[in-house]
């Protein structure tokens, strides 16, 4: 195994993190907050650690999928570890586990919080908390690929390990330009949302943090009331942008390069919008009480559906109080999640489509046992390996889900709480139901549960396998062996 290359990537990731910490330092300067000094200290430590890791130059550039997965998984763990330090050291989040949970939740764009009182946090801390969403949304390794002069195709393995989606493809021949284009689209959309929110007279600081939360489909807010206190216009803007950031970015790429027709015919995107519309209508129908005003009910339904299908997790109302069918619909869209190649989480629409088509194909085999049929997506055959990988993904997902559910149930909460806590972290949503509902938080869970949920968040963000690989003893044996050499 090429351990030096892994350290090399970790080193770069830490240096980038140090650079990113300059932004909360700026915020601290603006609001004259003392605790901003902790960011300076942690950034310095990141820089030094990064420098030490970069000192031994890798001799070989060969870089396979396993190294890509390990580098990615370790990067995320390291990033979260250093990222939580300002919270912990400044005493704003007194317990380490809580601070780590909060940061992992930030980077993985989950948005589950352990903070009972968000407004008590210093401004620079709040900013950093939301900024982690934005960084984690597109991924820090994709950013690394965009700025580091790397050649060779093996760095595709990094992108594959970090980007969500069934098949991770390139937009243009070079990984580097692909990564750049993705970040350009991401930045432009972020800026547009920010402008829209400012135009709606949202306070500057709120607008920045909410934009980060929406862009990364994360869900950390700055108010205890979530998004309930924002105006109707602001809520509609957030709703629309949550939906926009959950669309496969390939579609935007196609639109930019004048192939709008192709973008609109993307099967995944069309099915996604279909699900959104159906879910909104359904939830609206089951939450609307005759005599109520139409607009607020429709807005609440749309906001909640958009928030959960995009795996953002903002809330304008306490949907825990909604009727059972409406809640069931929300659970369903939580499972489905966003499109592949977006910043959202969940199982991904493309996987659901493939699985449904595979089921249809299997059913067909009962009618004509010898029937040969290809599964197609966007008029192209999906290879049998991809279909197979989808099955295994569902199976792995279910297994992790089951194991986590078991551990979480040790807390002694009701089933709905346990189930939704695992679902919401593994799919990177944010809030669940009952004791972890939109008005509640995760602070009352046991330490063990929190670590299990931390694992779930990372596994969910990195599409399961990189984190599982990190748990394999044979990988570490190989790792130690090559370190010794």
């Amino acid at each position, binding site marked *: 195994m090429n351990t030096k290359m892994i350290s090399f990537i970790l080193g770069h990731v830490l240096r980038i993190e140090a650079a990113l910490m300059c932004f909360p330092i700026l915020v601290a300067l603006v609001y004259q907050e003392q605790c901003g000094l902790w960011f300076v200290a942690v950034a310095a430590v990141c820089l030094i650690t990064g420098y030490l890791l970069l000192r031994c130059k890798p001799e070989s550039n060969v870089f396979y999928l396993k190294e890509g997965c390990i580098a990615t998984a370790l990067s995320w763990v390291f990033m979260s570890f250093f990222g939580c330090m300002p919270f912990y050291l400044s005493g704003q989040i007194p317990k380490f586990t809580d601070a780590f949970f909060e940061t992992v939740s930030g980077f993985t764009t989950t948005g589950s919080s352990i903070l009972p009182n968000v407004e008590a946090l210093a401004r620079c801390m709040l900013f950093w908390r939301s900024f982690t969403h934005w960084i984690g949304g597109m991924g820090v390794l994709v950013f690394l690929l965009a700025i580091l002069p790397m050649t060779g195709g093996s760095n595709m*393995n990094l992108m594959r390990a970090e980007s969500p989606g069934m098949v991770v493809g390139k937009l243009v021949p070079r990984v580097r330009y692909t990564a750049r284009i993705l970040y350009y689209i991401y930045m432009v959309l972020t800026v547009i949302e920010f402008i829209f929110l400012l135009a709606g007279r949202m306070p500057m600081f709120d607008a920045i943090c909410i934009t980060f939360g929406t862009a990364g489909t994360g869900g950390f807010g700055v108010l205890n009331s979530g998004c309930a206190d924002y105006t109707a216009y602001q809520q509609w803007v957030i709703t629309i942008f949550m939906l926009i950031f959950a669309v496969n970015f390939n579609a935007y790429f196609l639109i930019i390069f004048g192939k709008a027709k192709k973008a609109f015919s993307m099967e995944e995107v069309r099915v996604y919008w279909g699900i959104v519309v159906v879910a909104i209508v359904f939830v609206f129908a089951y939450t609307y009480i005759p005599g109520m005003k139409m607009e607020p009910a429709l807005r609440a339904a749309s906001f909640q559906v958009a928030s959960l299908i995009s795996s953002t997790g903002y809330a304008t109302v306490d949907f825990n109080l909604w009727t059972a069918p409406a809640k069931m619909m929300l659970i369903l869209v939580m499972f489905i999640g966003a499109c592949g190649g977006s910043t959202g989480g969940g199982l991904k629409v493309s996987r659901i489509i493939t699985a449904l088509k595979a089921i249809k194909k299997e059913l067909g085999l009962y009618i004509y046992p010898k029937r040969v049929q290809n599964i197609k997506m966007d008029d192209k055959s999906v290879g049998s390996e991809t279909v197979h990988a989808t099955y295994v993904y569902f199976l792995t997902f279910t297994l992790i889900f089951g194991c986590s559910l078991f551990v979480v149930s040790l807390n002694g909460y009701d089933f709905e709480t346990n189930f939704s806590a695992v679902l919401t972290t593994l799919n990177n949503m944010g809030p669940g139901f009952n004791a972890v509902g939109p008005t509640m938080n995760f602070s009352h869970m046991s330490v063990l549960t929190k670590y299990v949920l931390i694992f779930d968040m990372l596994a969910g963000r990195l599409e399961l396998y990189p984190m599982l690989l990190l748990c394999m003893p044979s990988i570490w044996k190989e790792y130690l062996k090559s370190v010794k050499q």
Partner: protein
Amino acid sequence: MLGNDKKSNQKGLKIIIVGCGKVGSTLTEELSAEGHDVSVIDQNAGAVQTLSDAYDVMGYAGNGASLKLLQEAGIDTADLIIAVTGSDELNLLCCTVAKRESNCAAIARVRTPEYSEEADYLRERLGLALIVNPDQEAANEITRVLTLPTALEIDTFMHAQAELIKIKIPENNVMDGKTIATIAREHSFHMLICGVERDGIAHIPSGAFVLHSGDQISFIGTRKHTKEFLESVGFDTKSVKDTMIVGGGRSAMYLAKNLMNSGIQVKIIEKDLEKCRKLSENFPNAVIIQGDGTDESVLMESGLKEAESFIPLTGIDEENVMLTLHAKHVSKAKVITKINRNSFRDVIDSMDLGSVIYPRYITSEVIVAYVRAMRDSKKYKSNVLTLYHLFNAQAEAVEFRVSQNSKIIGKKLMDLKIKENTLIALIFHRGKVIIPGGSSVIEANDRVIVVTANLGLDHIEDILA
């Protein structure tokens, strides 16, 4: 993984390569390393996947002649399409479709002997930039080496007016232990030793470089002068009189034709009777033997011991290598090994196989030269004309045409600040070949051959530090 930043930032051309076979993958590797945006197309989705995993390129699975797929691969904005699938017809169709759809340049590989005789006609009528034929090129290279069997490799410039010859210095040779300057003084001023490979590492030598036996050296000069030099340092310069070829495939056909034209007696051993009949029909003066060329007794019976040269062309690399080793063992014949695949090059280099020929590199050299000229032509107009890889692609010999507004003209070479490991090896001035010294001057419209370890020169100014 970490590349040269300057190269990767440079705006490359958009190139579509159809066919991910041996030549296709070599081209993908070289062109993507030179900073071009490469997309590959092949029917075999697995091959596309492997290639786009290994190099930083975009892959598309499907038929490269289909307009829909070409459009998806971005033919309308592409600068160049290279069709190197296994089928000549498909290659030509790909290029034809691509040319109709956009104004990109097109290069096709055409190998069938019938078509290759009409290559010029096809090229002109279909509006192609180049037609490449690796088998023909390989046959040409083998023929050159057979006419000067002491050489390991011979590359030619300016319609064979100048030659770059690679030899290995044997034990107790007069050159052993002498500096390059001494050798030039004692033997010939009309040639220049421009590359030395010692223990697998290529050096671009200065005059003070001391040669040892076992070194492989490349020197450049006109045919007359290189011959004189070789004779004066004790090498034989006589052409071989006969040759024995194992395998009667396409490459053997091209080679036999070349050799018969230069008066070398040809003997071909081929297993398949039908093929033998066809060979005999085409080459009535050649000796065609039907038999298994990998069988020792067949080889002995056919006279391997007495053969002056021996060339296995079975199409299977492992067989070729074994046959070469066997021939070296039992006879004194000059052997040339043709290696098609790219794997295990270091093992192949460590074996004593005589001259080794890689058809895929010959093809890619031609195409890479064309691409570099294409990239450069808009800006400096000092085109790359010819390009050869030397010493396992550690160094390159590049021929440039010097434009009128070039920065290097009218200055003495010793006044130019030239990069390290770079040598101006030869100047063609109005049809005359000049081996340059410190006081030589390059003028506009001269052609210059540069030997360098700084790979990737696009224009002559690139040699300046």
